[in-house]
């Protein structure tokens, strides 16, 4: 056998018969090159063990919930509704009674129009502007958006906005995020948003899923 063949055995970690193992050991005793290969493969094993320490991770509950949410979201996609829904939603949210509305009431009311309302990004922009014109803050929390058919979860902090401002999160204002969206090369692809709508910064507002498309 040639050194190439012996080194193939070594690198492949082939299961050798007893005779083959003895043959290899005899060769290693006299061949420095093949010994070097064998020693390197021992180092390889050390490195592999270290890499394997990036091991099976423990179950991440947050990740599990994100997955379930994503599964729900993609099961509920609906076509774009008429523009009238935007105005109805704005009117409803800005009614004084909803200033003190409970989360349950909001959920029930919006439920009449369906959780799966679909708005274009431009309509959401209009919604935000309409809210601002009424002196209300539209509180929006981004949770997911679907870019290029891949989910990217960005957990943003819920934050209250100043009067007339529309806050997406502690990181984005709606106009800035809107510009980012329109600049996306894959903007033609459907975008899915999970947002909270309301006229207060109450933490009791229910999360509502919306699918947005251009």
């Amino acid at each position: 056998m040639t050194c190439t063949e012996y080194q193939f055995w070594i690198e492949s970690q082939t299961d050798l018969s007893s005779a083959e193992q003895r043959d290899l050991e005899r060769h290693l005793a006299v061949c420095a090159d093949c010994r070097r290969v064998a020693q390197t493969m021992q180092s390889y094993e050390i490195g592999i063990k270290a890499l394997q320490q990036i091991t099976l991770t423990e179950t991440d509950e947050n990740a599990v919930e994100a997955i379930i949410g994503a599964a729900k979201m993609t099961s509920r996609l609906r076509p774009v509704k008429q523009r009238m829904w935007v105005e109805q939603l704005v009117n409803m949210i800005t009614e004084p009674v909803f200033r003190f509305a409970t989360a349950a009431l909001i959920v029930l009311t919006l439920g009449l129009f369906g959780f799966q309302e679909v708005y274009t990004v431009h309509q959401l922009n209009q919604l935000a502007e309409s809210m601002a014109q009424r002196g209300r803050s539209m509180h929006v929390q981004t949770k997911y958006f679907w870019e290029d058919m891949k989910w990217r979860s960005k957990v943003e902090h819920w934050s209250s906005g100043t009067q007339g401002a529309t806050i997406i999160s502690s990181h984005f204002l709606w106009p800035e995020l809107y510009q980012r969206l329109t600049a996306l090369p894959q903007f033609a692809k459907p975008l899915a948003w999970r947002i909270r709508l309301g006229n207060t910064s109450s933490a009791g507002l229910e999360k509502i899923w919306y699918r947005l498309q251009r």
Partner: protein
Amino acid sequence: MANRSTQPENIDTHDLIRICQEGDLAAFRELVLQYQGAAQGLARRFVGNLEDAEDIVQEAFVRVWHHLARFDFNKSFTNWLFRIIANLAYDVLRKRIKQNASITKWGDSIDFITQESNTDEALQIAMTIRYKAARLPLKQQLVFVLRDLQELSVAEVANILQISENAVKVNLHHARHAIRLQLEQGGEEF
């Protein structure tokens, strides 16, 4: 420590899948709970950084949810899930090549390795292996992760990647040969 999926498939898994096929999200949550850790570990071994791994795992389970009706109960759910993950990882890795993305996406794993490794030498060897592995042809990368890091059998790797067992052996040999040469040339500075 086992590197394979920790959840042996049994009749309970198949029962769970049957319930999921009826659209039961609670059952699907249970399924995700059982496999999310293993899926995350594999995805991270493929792509290195946590963010891409999380994206891959999310997308993989969404695809599982939408295609459960097609699941063949004569096949392994683990292999099916791993196949989806491997395909998604392939896309990520291919995109990185096009974008000339550097190996630094593996950077967030270095601290983890440091905590566990006993020696700097082990860390250096590990990073050299990872450095070289990330520059292998994509098929070799996938085989390397599934066979050497995940410790799946040749038959399982072949099934997951939908290639012949001989192709697995050939790709694995090429991968190990390239990595071995890199180790002999010396590691990179990280």
